[in-house]
C-alpha cells in the first residue's frame, strides 16, 4: 500500500515542514518534563485540602486523578522523541540553530504584548481608563510596526476616544477611577 504524504496547507510563512516538525519534537522533551513536574506539584498540593473524601469520591479525587494524568502524559511526552522513529535529516542541533534567530526576534514581540496587557490592567487603576488605553494603544501599534510617531500618536488617541465613547458612554460600562490621575472630569 502506498503511503500518502499529507500536505497541510499553511498560510504562515514558516520554516520548511521538516525543520519545523523537528523543532517541535525537540521541544516535546522539555514540554513533557514541565507538564510532569507541574503535575507532581499539583498532586502535592492536594494534601493541603482540609476536607477530604466522603464516600468514594470527594473534593480531592478529581484533582488527584487529573494531576496524575498530567504526570503520566508528561513523562510519555518527554520520552516521545526516543519512542518515535526519526527522519533521516532530523538534526536537533541544526533545527535549533535555524530557529534561534527567529525565536530571538519573536520573543520580544510576544513578551512585549504580554507586558502591555498586564501594564494596561495595572495602570488603569493608577491613571484611569483613558490614559492607560492611549498608552496601551500606542505600545501595541508600535509592536505592529506602525512607523510614524505622529501617526501612532494620532491613531492611539483616536482609539482611546472611540473606546471611551463606545463602552463607557454608549454602553455605560463602569471603569475604576485612576488613583494618581483621572480624566473622568472631562466627561462629566
Amino acid at each position, binding site marked *: 500500500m502506498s503511503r500518502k504524504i499529507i500536505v497541510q496547507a499553511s498560510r504562515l510563512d514558516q520554516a520548511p515542514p521538516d525543520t519545523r516538525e523537528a523543532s517541535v519534537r525537540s521541544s*516535546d522533551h522539555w514540554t513533557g518534563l514541565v507538564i510532569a513536574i507541574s503535575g507532581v506539584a499539583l498532586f502535592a498540593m492536594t494534601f493541603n485540602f482540609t476536607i477530604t473524601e466522603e464516600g468514594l469520591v470527594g473534593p480531592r479525587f478529581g484533582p488527584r486523578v487529573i494531576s496524575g494524568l*498530567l504526570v503520566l502524559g508528561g513523562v510519555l511526552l518527554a520520552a516521545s522523541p526516543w519512542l*518515535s522513529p526519526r527522519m533521516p535529516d532530523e538534526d536537533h542541533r541544526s533545527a535549533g540553530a535555524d530557529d534561534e534567530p527567529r525565536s530571538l526576534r519573536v520573543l520580544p514581540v510576544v513578551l512585549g504584548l504580554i507586558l502591555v496587557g498586564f501594564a494596561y490592567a495595572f495602570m488603569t487603576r493608577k491613571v484611569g481608563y483613558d490614559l492607560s488605553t492611549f498608552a496601551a494603544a500606542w505600545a501595541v501599534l508600535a509592536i505592529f*510596526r506602525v512607523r510614524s510617531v505622529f501617526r501612532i500618536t494620532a491613531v492611539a488617541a483616536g482609539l482611546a476616544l472611540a473606546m471611551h465613547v463606545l463602552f463607557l458612554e454608549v454602553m455605560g460600562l463602569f471603569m475604576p477611577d485612576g488613583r494618581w490621575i483621572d480624566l473622568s472630569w472631562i466627561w462629566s
Partner: protein
Amino acid sequence: MEILNGFATLFSTPDALAYTALAAVLGVVIGSLPGLTVAAAIAMLVPVTYYLDPLAALSFLYVIGKAGRYGGSISAILFNTPGTTASVATIFDGYPLARRGDARRALRTSTVASMIGDWIGDAILIFGAVIIASWTSSFGPAEYFGIYMMAFLIIGSVVGKSILKGLLAIAMGLAVAMVGLDPITGQPRWTFGHIELEGGFGLVPLLVGLFVISEIMVQAEQSLRGTAPIAFPKMSNRGLTLRELFRLLPVIGRSAIYGAFIGMMPGLGSSVAAFVAYAEEKRRAGPDAGWGEGAIAGVAAPEAANNAVNGPSMIPLLTLGVPGTTVAAILMGVFLIHGIPIGPTIFSAAGDLVYGLFAAGVLGVLLYGITGWFFGPAIGRLVSLVPTRYVYPTIFLVTVIASYSVRLNLFDVYVMMAAGLLGYVMRKLEFPTAAFIIAFILAPGAEESLRQSLLLSRNGWMIFLTEPVAAGFLAVGMLVIAVRTIVKLRQRPGPADIDARPG
C-alpha cells in the same frame, strides 16, 4: 410544526431579528478577514451579549458563526488567503478562477453553495435534534458521565495532530477548571490562597485569551516578516448562470451530506468537512475535469460542506450537552450565562428559544447570502484596503474591555493575558486549544455526574459497566482512541520507508 413557532418567536422579538441581520453582515466581514478566526471573533463578542435577550444573544453569535464560515471564501478566492481554516480547500479552484478574471463567478458559486449546504444542515438539525433528544432525555448521571468521558476521549484523540497532546490538552483544561471552590463541599482547590481564584477562572477571559490574544501574538510575529499590500484582482462581470447552477446541484447536495455527517461528530469540524468533500468530488469528477485549475465545482464542494457543518454541530450540544466544535463550546457558555440548561431537557424547558434559534439560523443564511451575492467584491476590496497593523491593536483593546466587563474585575484581564500566552505556546507546540477549552467547559458537569453516580450506586464504580448505555459510551470513546492510535502507527514511516520518501 415547531419550527413555524420558532419563526413566530423570532419575528415577534425585534431585538433578535435585528441582531440576526447585523450578525449576517458582520459575520461575512469578520470571516473575510485573514487571521481572525470565527471562534475568536465570537469569543470577543460574548460580553456584548450579556445584557441582551437570550434569543437575541444566541442568534447573534450563532449567525456570526454561519456567516463567518461563508465569509472566509471571499479572501480565499480573491487573495489566495483563507479567511477561516474552513476555506483553505476553496483556494484550490477559487483563486485560479480569480486570476483569470472570473472572481465574481467564483464568489457567486461560493455564495449559492454555502447557502444550500447551510440549509441542508439546518434541516438535519431541526428534524434530527428532537429525535435524538427524546432518546437522551431518560439518561441519568451514569449515562452523562459516560457521555462526558466519551467526549473527552474522542475530542482529545481526534483534534490536533498528536493523540497524546490532545489528551494532555484535555487534562490541562480539566485541571484549570478545578481551580476554585469544590461545588459540593466548598473546599478551596488550587487557589494558592488568593480570594480572586475562589470563583475559578472566568470562561470569557479564558476564551478570549486562548483564541484572540494568541492570534494577535501570531499576527504580531507575522508583522516582523513584513506584509506585501494585498492586490485586488481584476474582475469580469461574468456571474453564475442557471444552467451552471443546476449542474452543480448534485455536487452541492453530496458535499452538504458529507459536511452534515462530519459536523455531527465531535472534534472534526468544518475544515475536515471541506477537505473530505473536495477530495471525494474531485475523485468522482475524474482527472480531466480540470479540478485544481479553476473548476467551479471545486469551489462549490468545499463551501457546501463547510457550511453544512453549522447546524448538525449543534446536535451533540443540544441533545447531550457536549459541544463538538469550538463555536459550539462558546455557545454553550452563552447558554449557561443566560441560565438555560443544556441537554435533552432543553426542548421541553426552552423549546421556544431553541426553535427561535433554529429559525434565526435559517433566516441568517438568507441574509448572509444576499450580503455576499451583492456585496462580496466590495467586502473583499474593504479587506484589501484596511491594514491589519491597525485592526489587531484595535481588537487587542476591545478584548481587554471585554474581559473586564464580565465581572468588572481587572483580575480577569490578567487571566486573559496569561491565557493568551498559554494559547500562543500551545499553538507553537501543537497542542489543540479547542480540546483545552471544551474540557474546561465540560469539567464541572463531568465531576458532578461522577459524584452523583457513585452516591446513587450500590456497586460503586461498577455502575459504569452495569449501566449499558454508560458502558456503551465509554466503549465508543476507547474504540475511537484505539482506532486513531492504530491509524497513526500505520502512518509512521518505518526504517525501510524513510529512504523511500521523496526529496
